[in-house]
């Protein structure tokens, strides 16, 4: 997959929306009955994670990461196998759109999407729409905790299944509108 292809895909994330301090742009609401179900589900998930954290402490991260990874492997085993990681990520982004919409990202001063730093090779991923972030913010919980680990596990599991290569995800930054992650390739 060429860089121009990724850039073409990334154009979809560059919209004319203006975020002013005094305004929060609301997307169109889901139907009322669906919204009630969604909020109930988000609350339930938040409480499960909070309880898991209280009982297992830091071990909660391992449990949720494992669950996410299994889910990723399970879902991706039906995908076609691709050797190229960038192409696999593009396919995954397309499949997960709406749940975990993400783009392959690079700083403007960087020439390639595949970055090198201290002997590690990685790709930056920016997660835009994310059901985990929405759940955490609905419940007033901190981002980057055990529920985020399910997402890391999911992406790692899916990438491993598609490419047959080992990978790892690290969190770089979490925000209200997007999160920056590093997909470390081994």
């Amino acid at each position, binding site marked *: 997959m060429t860089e121009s292809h990724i850039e073409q895909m990334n154009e979809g994330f*560059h*919209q*004319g929306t*203006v975020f002013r*301090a005094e305004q929060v742009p609301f*997307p169109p609401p889901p139907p009322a009955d669906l919204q009630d179900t969604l*909020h109930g589900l988000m609350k339930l998930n938040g409480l499960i994670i909070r309880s898991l954290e209280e009982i297992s402490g830091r071990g909660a991260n391992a449990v949720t990461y494992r669950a996410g990874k299994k889910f990723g492997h399970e879902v991706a085993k039906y995908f076609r196998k691709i050797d190229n990681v960038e192409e696999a990520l593009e396919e995954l982004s397309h499949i997960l759109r709406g749940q975990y919409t993400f783009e392959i990202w690079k700083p403007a001063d960087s020439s390639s999407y595949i970055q090198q730093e201290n002997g590690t090779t990685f790709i930056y991923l920016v997660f835009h729409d994310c059901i985990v972030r929405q759940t955490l913010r609905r419940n007033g919980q901190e981002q980057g905790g055990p529920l985020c680990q399910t997402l890391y596990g999911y992406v790692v599991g899916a990438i491993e299944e598609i490419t047959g290569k080992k990978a790892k995800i690290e969190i770089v930054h979490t925000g209200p509108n997007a999160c920056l992650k590093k997909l470390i390739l081994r």
Partner: protein
Amino acid sequence: MIEINVDKEACNGCGLCVKDCPMKVYELKDGLSVPIRSANCMGCLSCHEICPAQALEHKGVYPSKRYYIDLKVAEMLGKVI
């Protein structure tokens, strides 16, 4: 590309956006925050949320879905604000 505008009248130069941004988009110059690397902004809007003076404006950001916002509460707040 994302365009960032800082309201010079509102910015109090606290530097929270400078500390928080992982891509070092902002720098403090003459006691004001200046977006010197807007091209490196990935639109997380952390700075937007953290700014105590509400001095930041972002243009060209992909708006992520925000179904967590309780629309009934937002509607009530809208009547007050």
